[in-house]
């Protein structure tokens, strides 16, 4: 901000003197970003775009939607059939949720790979986890609104978690439901909160950006910015790169909206909610499947739940719920579980492997979550695959990360960001097995 711009337009100057909004915008433009950000850094802006798309389509959908247990399903179908371009709005919103999660999950795993959670970005990371939790709550409540079979039974399963709380569980659950079952009162409050939470997310996103701009973006090398030679102005360099990324992303998004709008959906949710008929397989949306697998992995017979929680204190259902929430909350502790001073996995030969194993583990959990727990894969019960994958998930964070920090010998780091970049040939061969001081 030191280089406060001199505006030519007197009106702009007058306003800026009283409310420095133009200086603020100028600051956003000249904001220095590391010069070596790769395409994985596009996903933050993509998430921002998706948040806006979801809010805009959602507000218009809300103009046509009726949050009542006897009318919600029909009102959604009215949007699909009779509202002008209602089908487009709804499919944009429906598939937008999936796209939002794809983008955000890639964004999270990018942070994991390049160590973006490490000092001084711990709060940036934790705020990101809070955004993820808010997104999950919003998505869950949004999925209930069409009041189809999966909406209803999904709501029933998830809200019933709270009955696991000792002593007051039943009371809390009835308080959340607004009655003795998932019913109209539940639908109404879910609609209200589904409308509210996105704006809470917007507010938290501002904190996320504030923290980001304070210490600037991490980068694929994971080393600090040493001076102006390491940076380029965000505008135009990263605005044009983000725009290109948005173009590619919109191609994928549009392909689903126009040619496979129900690809991510469950046929069961095109059946009106019926409290008397339980669907054969209650499954959440794909983006919740890994957590669903963790929830079901921890049960009475799971030795892990016994070790982690003990039988005497809490029952298995509560242990499952705790494990599910812990699987996300544990990410908040990652900056302190991973003590390695090297951020980027490019220079962490052992961590690199464990990163990919963790990613694979997350996919396995998702796959297990999609299948019935009593199912069998090549003779192996899904329950056991889920248990081992769950155990590994927690081992990764609690045991492997701290041990790696001690035993891993990182590759030598390059001296600065500009060094490998300026050395020619772009940054693909990050394996500049830099003799660190060679070219100071």
């Amino acid at each position, binding site marked *: 901000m030191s280089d406060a711009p001199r505006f030519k337009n007197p009106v702009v100057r007058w306003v800026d003197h009283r409310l420095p909004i133009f200086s603020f915008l100028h600051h956003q433009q000249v904001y220095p970003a590391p*010069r070596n950000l*790769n*395409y*994985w850094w596009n996903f933050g802006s993509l998430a921002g775009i998706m948040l806006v798309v979801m809010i805009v389509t959602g507000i218009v959908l809300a103009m046509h939607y009726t949050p009542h247990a006897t009318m919600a399903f*029909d009102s959604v*179908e009215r949007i*699909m*059939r009779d509202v002008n371009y209602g*089908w*487009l709005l709804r*499919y944009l919103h429906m598939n937008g949720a999936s796209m939002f999660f794809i983008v955000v999950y*890639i964004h999270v795993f990018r942070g994991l*790979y390049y160590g973006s959670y490490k000092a001084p970005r711990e709060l940036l990371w934790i705020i990101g986890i809070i955004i993820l939790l808010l997104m999950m709550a919003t998505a869950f409540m949004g999925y209930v609104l069409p009041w189809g079979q999966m909406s209803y039974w999904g709501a029933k399963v998830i809200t019933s978690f709270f009955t696991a709380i000792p002593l007051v569980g039943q009371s809390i659950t009835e308080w959340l439901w607004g009655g003795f079952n998932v019913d109209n009162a539940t639908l109404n409050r879910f609609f209200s909160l589904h409308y509210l939470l996105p704006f809470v997310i917007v507010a938290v996103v501002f904190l996320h950006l504030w923290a980001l701009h304070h210490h600037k973006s991490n980068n694929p090398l994971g080393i600090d910015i040493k001076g102006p030679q390491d940076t*380029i102005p965000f505008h*135009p*360099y990263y605005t*044009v*790169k983000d*725009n*290109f990324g*948005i*173009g*590619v992303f*919109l*191609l994928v998004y*549009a*392909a689903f*909206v*126009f*040619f496979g*709008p*129900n*690809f991510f959906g469950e*046929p*069961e949710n*095109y*059946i009106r909610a019926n409290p008397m008929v339980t669907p*054969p397989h209650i499954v959440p949306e*794909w983006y919740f499947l890994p957590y669903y697998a963790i929830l079901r992995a921890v049960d009475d017979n799971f030795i892990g739940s016994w070790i982690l929680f003990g039988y005497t204190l809490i029952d298995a259902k509560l242990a499952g719920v705790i494990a599910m929430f812990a699987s996300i909350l544990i990410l908040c502790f990652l900056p302190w579980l991973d003590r390695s001073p090297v951020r980027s996995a490019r220079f962490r030969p052992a961590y690199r492997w464990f990163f*990919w194993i963790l*990613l694979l583990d997350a*996919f396995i959990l998702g*796959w297990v979550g*999609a299948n019935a727990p009593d199912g069998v894969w090549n003779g192996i019960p899904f329950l056991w695959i889920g248990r081992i994958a769950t155990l590994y998930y927690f081992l990764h964070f609690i045991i492997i990360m701290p041990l790696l920090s001690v035993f891993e010998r990182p590759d030598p780091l390059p001296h600065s960001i500009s060094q490998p970049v300026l050395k020619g040939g*772009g940054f693909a061969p990050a394996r500049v097995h830099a003799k660190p001081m060679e070219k100071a």
Partner: protein
Amino acid sequence: MMRKIGLLGAVVVLLAMGGNAVAAEGELPRQEWSFNSIFGTYDEAALQRGFLVYKDVCSACHSMNLLSYRHLSGTGLSEDQIKAVAASVQVPDGPNDEGEMFERAGLQSDRFKAPFPNEQAARAANNGAYPPDLSLMAKARPGGPDYIYAILTGYEEPPAGFQLNEGMSYNEYFAVSANQIAMPPPLSDGAVTYADGTEATVPQMARDVAAFLAWAAEPNLNERHQIGVGVMLFLIVLTACLYAVYRKVWADVH
């Protein structure tokens, strides 16, 4: 390296999801539908034949509560034809100025007339089973129109030793209750008379009504595909331009 592996991961996920979808549909025989491809549209002649099958056969037991007669313009029926179809049913209306309920001929704006006033009446007339509403059937079952076609053509003699309950029929594709379906075989050759002279065989009628139900569940598919192709072409050009801008702006950095 991360870029490559990331792409590979995305491909694996998509394949796995596709694989699951196929597995869930079991052994449903896949049919060729005019509306399957990205340029696909509904075949209006098939939709009109399918509507005839619904009107003359299915509607004896199955409602389609989400559709109004006016929606039939999407099958290519003319306004006069739709008015005639609507007028062929009597619908309750009222109260009139004297406070009396009355019956009148149907209008285009009326919903499809349901065969039964409520679920209990439907069950009472159908041996305790509830014929589901068909408005969204093609989206509410894995396989959609393929499933509908398979059910309608899947009636067989039960295998030897199969314990068939009273009033039930054996259907190869009705997996939800172990091949026992409460709906007796609804179609028989010549059950309807097609105006366009198409021979009304069971597979032909099953195909037509499955196409009609696919349309009923997703009436905006034609428009969606048409707009979608335009959107994709626009985005491809836009993205190419944005890439060119990106390369140009970055030329001095690379």
